[in-house]
């Protein structure tokens, strides 16, 4: 067992799946010779050859479409978007082709479309949270891990899943030293559709995912230190399908709910979670549900503006205290 970063965990998952299943292959821009924009697939082409690690043209629609076709012919393609912002160019293939195949004619489309998302100083076109475009489309699973171990476990699960899976990797986590941990061994595979409690507590639950898990944990620690309240942090991990059972269990246990996401506010996942809680567990609430999200603007380039755009730990602490005092 080895210790690794979030990025190394992803690399290990790809490597092991490719070794264990010859149907698995990679396609994307600059992933072979160059080893990927983030060097995630460095050494892969040397190891597996250009037939299984394919440098594609700059054509996201072509990449996703070809992945669909290869999957229909029995392969297990893993397509990389160099930055998830560029998935917009492949939107049609994913939402109209891949997502509707099984419903229309019962054929599974086991593809993974993965890549770096989230804000880390890249400006309006290298920072976006793209999940909601796809969560709203029935037929696509959406996964976003927050820890290195989960990155490995869930990417393996995504590759083995018979559905199209959008796998979102927050680029700010890739090399974060704090996320280095012991990685699960080869035989372990995660399960899609299950949330995880990252910190237990029963005074308030923060429902969150991706990089915001870590800011939420920081906020929870601060509240424990300064206010003595115990905040539960629920990491969704899979955003579609969502783990309603874990969410409702948390609502029943904590009675106060704060939802935190890096995505913009309007039509962000918080709205959907709120509606589900209203439908399934309203009577357990002691306070209105609140959310801390990014602002409804493009992601700005300047670092001070980006910081103002993103949810910050003090924002989470403030909202949590508002709920605890409610």
């Amino acid at each position: 067992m080895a210790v690794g970063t979030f990025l190394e965990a992803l690399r290990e998952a790809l490597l092991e799946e490719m070794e264990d299943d010859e149907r698995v292959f990679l396609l994307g821009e600059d992933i072979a010779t160059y080893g990927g924009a983030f060097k995630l697939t460095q050494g892969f082409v040397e190891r597996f050859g250009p037939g299984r690690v394919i440098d594609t043209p700059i054509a996201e629609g072509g990449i996703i479409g070809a992945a669909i076709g290869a999957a229909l012919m029995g392969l297990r393609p893993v397509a990389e978007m160099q930055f998830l912002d560029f998935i917009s160019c492949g939107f049609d293939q994913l939402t109209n082709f891949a997502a509707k195949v099984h419903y229309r004619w019962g054929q599974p489309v086991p593809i993974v479309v993965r890549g770096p998302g989230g804000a880390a100083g890249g400006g309006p076109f290298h920072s976006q949270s793209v999940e909601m475009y796809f969560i709203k489309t029935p037929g696509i699973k959406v996964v976003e891990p927050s820890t290195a171990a989960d990155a490995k476990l869930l990417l393996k699960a995504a590759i083995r899943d018979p559905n199209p899976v959008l796998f979102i990797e927050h680029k700010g986590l890739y090399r974060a030293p704090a996320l280095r941990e012991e990685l699960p061994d080869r035989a372990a595979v995660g399960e899609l559709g299950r949330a995880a409690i990252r910190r237990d507590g029963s005074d308030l639950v923060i429902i969150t995912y991706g990089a915001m898990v870590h800011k939420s944990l920081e906020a929870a620690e601060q509240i424990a230190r300064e206010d003595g309240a115990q905040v539960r942090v629920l990491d969704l991990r899979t955003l579609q399908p969502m783990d309603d059972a874990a969410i409702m269990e948390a609502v029943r246990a904590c009675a106060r709910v704060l939802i935190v996401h890096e995505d913009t506010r309007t039509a962000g996942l918080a709205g959907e979670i709120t509606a589900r809680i209203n439908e399934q567990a309203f009577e357990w609430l002691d306070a209105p549900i609140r959310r801390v999200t990014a602002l409804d603007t493009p992601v700005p380039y300047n670092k001070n503006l980006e910081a103002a755009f993103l949810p910050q730990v003090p924002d989470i602490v403030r909202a949590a205290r508002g709920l605890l005092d409610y």
Partner: protein
Amino acid sequence: MKRYPAYEFPEYVDWRPDPAVQQAFADRLVADPARAAVIGALDREALLSLYEGLVRARLHDIHLKRWVKQGVITKAWLGAGEEAVTVGACAALRPEDVVGPMIRNAAACFQRGMPMVECFAAYLGTTDAITQGRDLHIGDLEFGVVPPISHVGDLVPVMAGCALAFRLRGEPRVAVTWTGDGSTATGAVHEGLRMASATRAPFICFVQNNLVALGTRGQAHFTGDFADLPAAYGMTGMVVDGNNVLDVYAATVLAAERCRRGEGPVLIVAQTFRMGGHATHDEREARELFPPEVFAHWGQRDPIGCFETWLVEARGVAPEALSAIEARVDAAIEAAAREAVSGKGVREPDPATVAQGVWA
């Protein structure tokens, strides 16, 4: 011009004219009679202004590299070695025309008269730039520059649309953009070219074929010939030596004339080479993508060295006249960069304004 060993490609640092390459440069100028006539009509002032544009573009990039080295910025996307494609094209346009430069064509911004300070400030994210720190891509319609987005290819249909507006209003204006060789794979480029072709818009699209896309040789994903594209799209086609500013200039003049006469869009394939990295961070890796002979070949075709030599040898321009231009441009760039840096940490956008301006 002066060379900068700390910042320039080795082939440029020790650059000396090669007689055979210079002969080919000169031959190119007379290979096509129509282009030869355009070039022949250039007076000394026009020639020196092309030189000035090339030098400004190069010194701008060198300055950005200096900033990277000093830690002012983390990386920069450069057009060094490919300046002629941008400068030659812009010099052929009129003030009322519009251009849509990719980041590698940043020289188009200053060619069109945008203040250098703004171009530098955009990188710094300060309020000295039109984007007020919201994006590093810049343009300004006041100067006829439409800024790109990161998504490559997306400018092509947009610029075709600018051209369509000119056609609809019967204005003798043209819209110009550049797409990299790699970016021709996008749906957007294809759709944009089809739109331009279908609407007979006064649109000029360069395919800036620098033989590489990010970290992958062009040959790895395209074995066709870009020169075949114009015919396939029903557009007028031209091929230019992208390292010969006069060839680019002359072809663009002829293309723009066609456009203004209502003869429809033109696709110009410019052959050039990316001497550096995709950006400053991967220059070393980029050197491993091609054998050293390729760098030697294209290094000898430095668009500035070749043109400078031609100006002196074929046009009798005194080297002192060229160094005077260089000194002037250098001083202006130094001043602009200094001014831009002085805004760092000072003229920063106010975080309280972050939510403003989403809506018009």
